[in-house]
């Protein structure tokens, strides 16, 4: 047995080096994902880590007895801190003010502990090797470990295991080495029982983390919302999450805010009334998208309207907004109204087969952030719409922010015009979203608007609407290409413009 002690200790050097570098890379990658600017993140993290190793090495001189026991103890600490580091960072990201402080504290703690280990192991081995052999062997294994880590991390670990599992796996390796050493030096160490127990505890925690990492992941996702989640569901099309605090209720689809109860009335009043109030004697109204029933609520203010057809892809959304008490109170139980028919279908396909004509059509689709949704803003779609519009009918379309995404906004306007529509662009301030854009479209070039809005409205009145059609100097109309199925320019515009904002 004695013969392989040296080998075992050198193997520990190798594991320590590999694991140490992996933790550093995990921290760097995570920081790049969460904070952006990977160059800064990686270089500061590598710097802090190396410096901390220096601190660890310095402090190693204060350890004088029971070196192997200390080594094992430190190894267990590295295992636990390193193994849990990525989970801790994910969990805390949205909930602490100074995320960076925690990040660098974790990195430097790991660095200090790893920095302690190499000097300790050199001293453990000092009697077993000549000095020149010792230095050569230790550093050889140290650097090989580093190479292995840096190659395996991007090629295998991140793609196949992900960051959480990688951390747990390498934590397990650290803990495994510690446990192995415990058995090897069974007789030489005084508090062996205690050490073994901590090793096993660490292993249990890490294995649990490894197995549960999927759940942890979905939990960290739910942590993304600042408020309490009162409802969440996964439909075939999207993740529906509803949050609530003292002041407001918010709906998120795939993590994107759809509305906040604090200011959604601004959005929906602006969406519905300028058009619908201008139609004399509207009978049939079509709503495409808008499964939350909030636009329908506004339409129901017009007693002349006999029938409202709501076409929304997602049955989960229309169902919760019909049956969930607090949501139904938001839309005034609009979806339960006798006038409303809810159809869960793909709007494009539904429109192709529709033969009915509508006096007013509200289009409230998600923003054109991908090629699938981009189709719903194409000239082909608007030509279909034309066929479903009554002779004096009006269409209104939500068209993203003309301030943040002017090319996207004006692309919707220009695409409508290319299909022979006359357009009336306007915009409103909705605090949760910013400056938001809408377009009305009709066949006739003469707009006969009725701006005598009901006094019951909270936001819209004649004076306000007069301002809404004014586009100030910094957001003038622009020429864009027409969005077609075979060019999908709108998706390109949209990606470009919103990417600038988020990066």
């Amino acid at each position, binding site marked *: 047995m004695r013969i392989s002690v040296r080998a075992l200790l050198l193997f520990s050097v190798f594991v320590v080096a590999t694991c140490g570098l992996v933790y550093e890379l995990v921290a760097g990658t995570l920081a790049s*994902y*969460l904070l952006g600017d990977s160059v800064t993140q990686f270089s500061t993290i590598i710097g802090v880590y190396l410096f901390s190793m220096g601190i660890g090495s310095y402090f190693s001189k204060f350890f004088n007895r029971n070196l192997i026991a200390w080594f094992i103890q430190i190894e267990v600490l590295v295992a636990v801190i390193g193994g849990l580091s990525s989970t801790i960072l994910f969990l805390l990201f*949205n909930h602490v003010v100074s995320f960076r402080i925690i990040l660098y504290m974790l990195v430097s703690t790991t660095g200090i502990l790893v920095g302690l280990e190499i000097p300790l192991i050199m001293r453990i081995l000092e009697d077993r090797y000549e000095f020149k052999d010792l230095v050569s062997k230790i550093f050889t294994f140290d650097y090989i470990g580093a190479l292995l880590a840096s190659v395996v991390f991007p090629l295998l670990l*991140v*793609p*196949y*295991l*992900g*960051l*959480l*599992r990688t951390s747990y796996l390498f934590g397990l390796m650290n803990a495994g080495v510690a446990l192995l050493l415990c058995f090897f030096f069974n007789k030489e160490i005084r508090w062996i029982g205690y050490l073994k127990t901590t090793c096993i505890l660490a292993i249990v925690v890490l294995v649990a983390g490894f197995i549960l*990492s*999927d759940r942890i*992941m*979905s939990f*960290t*996702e739910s942590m*993304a919302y600042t408020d309490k989640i009162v409802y969440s569901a996964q439909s*075939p*099309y999207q993740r529906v999450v509803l949050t609530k605090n003292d002041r407001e209720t918010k709906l*998120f*689809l*795939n*993590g*994107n*805010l*759809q*509305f906040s109860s604090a200011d959604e009335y601004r*959005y929906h009043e602006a969406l519905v009334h300028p058009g619908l109030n201008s139609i004399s004697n509207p009978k049939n109204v079509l709503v495409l998208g808008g499964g939350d029933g909030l636009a329908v609520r506004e339409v129901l203010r017009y007693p002349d309207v006999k029938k409202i057809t709501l076409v929304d*892809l997602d049955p989960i959304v229309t169902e919760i907004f019909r049956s969930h008490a607090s949501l139904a109170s938001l839309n005034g139980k609009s979806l339960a109204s006798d006038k409303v028919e809810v159809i869960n279908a*793909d709007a*494009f*396909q539904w429109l*192709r087969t529709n033969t009915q004509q509508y006096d007013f059509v509200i289009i*409230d689709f*998600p*923003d054109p*952030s*991908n*090629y*699938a*949704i981009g*189709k719903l803003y194409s*000239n*082909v779609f608007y030509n279909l719409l034309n066929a479903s519009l009554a002779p004096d009918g009006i269409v209104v379309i*939500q068209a993203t*922010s003309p301030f*943040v995404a002017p090319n996207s906004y004006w692309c919707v306007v220009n695409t409508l015009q290319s299909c022979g529509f006359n357009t009336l662009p306007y915009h409103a301030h*909705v605090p949760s*979203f*910013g400056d938001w854009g809408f377009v009305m479209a009709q066949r006739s070039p003469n707009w006969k608007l009725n701006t005598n809005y009901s006094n019951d409205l909270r936001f819209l009145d004649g004076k306000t609407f007069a301002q809404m059609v004014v586009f100030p100097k910094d957001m003038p109309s622009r020429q864009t290409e027409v969005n*077609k*199925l*075979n*060019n*999908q320019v709108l*998706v390109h515009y949209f990606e470009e413009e*919103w990417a600038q*904002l*988020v990066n």
Partner: protein
Amino acid sequence: MKKPGRRNFIFKSITALGGLAATGGSIASCTTSSKKAITGKLLGPSFKAGHLLRKGISIIPTQVEETDVVIVGGGVSGLAAARWLKQNSDKEILLLELEQETGGNAAAGKNEQTSYPWGAHYLPLPNNSFTALLDFLHECKVITGYNEAKLPVYNEYYLCFDPEERLYINNYWQEGLVPRWGVPQKDQQQISRFQELMDELKDAKGSDRKYAFDIPLANSSADTQYRDLDKLTMLEWLLQHELTSEYLHWYVDYCCRDDFGSSLENTSAWAGIHYFASRKAEAANSEPHRVLTWPEGNNWLVQCLRETCADSIRTNAMVYNVTEVNGKIAVDFMDLRTQKYKRLLAEKCIMATPQFVNQRLLNNIPAISAQRKYERFNYVPWLVANITLKDVPQGKGFGLCWDNVIYGSKSLGYVYANHQQVALFPERKTITFYYPLADDKPAVARGKAYSSGYDYWQEFVLHELEKAHPTIREQVEALDTWVWGHGMICPVPGFIWGEEKNTSATPYADKLYFAHSDLSGISVFEEAFYQGISAAQHVLNITVA
């Protein structure tokens, strides 16, 4: 409404990462041990009939019918001929098709979600000079009208939706098929130089003032400066122009395999350049280089062709002998449904069949069989697979496109059949995988293709797809394969402007005419359509412009 805030954006990327982590473990654990059993069928054109024909049938049918014109073969050329005759004459015609359906290699299938192609699946925007084709497209509302500049306005449901193409290269999906991602500067320069040369050749005209490369290719210039390119291979031409980049070679090789099923070393330089330089379309509402496509591929066009002549078509009719009897053409066939033998006597006959079939059918006309050198016609076998997936795995880089190609793969990658549907989120996705067996001699490759069973091909297809989608196996719900023994005529050097093609296309005794894309030398819809129409014009004694 709906703005992606910064945090949401970030968390999207993390959940994506988490998704990777979540599936990562299972990949590692199930690549070797627990392969899911995937079921499917091996399909293909009637082998049995082909076998019967090779053995030869010597029965002379006693049941005889008469008609004006018989068309043998219901592929695109046969249908185009039938349509033309219906529209431009009152001749009684009969079209005999061996299979249950007409359409030749523009076959298609269907599942609950979508139709999908089993062969030819797109039509590049046609040259505006090819008015016969434009008229047909207008007739079936692919062209909805013409603008003030007289440019065709294409139906936007049929123009390929964006995004059109992506290439998996260096572990990344890049947009477009021309290799760019991680491609060294000097290779990119060669690729640009190649593209400039092709642009020059696109406009080039010969001494007869015809385009050097045109469609139909018969309209191309006879100038030897260009036609002599047919004597070189595409590889030799590239090397002559000091175009040595392996990325460029892969790309041109891919294009040759895509259009002709043949490799760089085996394709005539004239044909190879024709791929890049012959298309000069102009459209009112599309860029010139785009394509028309349908979920069922060119079978959609086949159905339009068929509509004009549906009542003259007899399917399951295996023609086994065509001969001259008392100044008429006798076409003997077996009705595969009733197993009965019949003879059609016609004034004129169009053989809209490939030459490897004519080789079996025309033995009893010595004047024909003595002249022909059928062995000069090489046909590449193809393997096509349709795979229904729960979802196409999201790889790194650009999202799912219509055409998805994997760099370095011998296959042509896959085409997304649901792409032309307007529905946003199909419940199941179907992709069509194409693989020309271009590496062996056609006869050897054909033997291999036929002797390999379904299991072999299933594994082959999955293996190729796994190069870009390591987890695709878990998504597969059904995988069917189809072997085309004679998928495409191969334009080997010297074939397109060689003697044999002309000899085989020469009508016999003003009674028997020939129409098939193998007589053009390249297997594309435009050529088949042109062959059919010009044979029909010959039948009516109209001089072809």
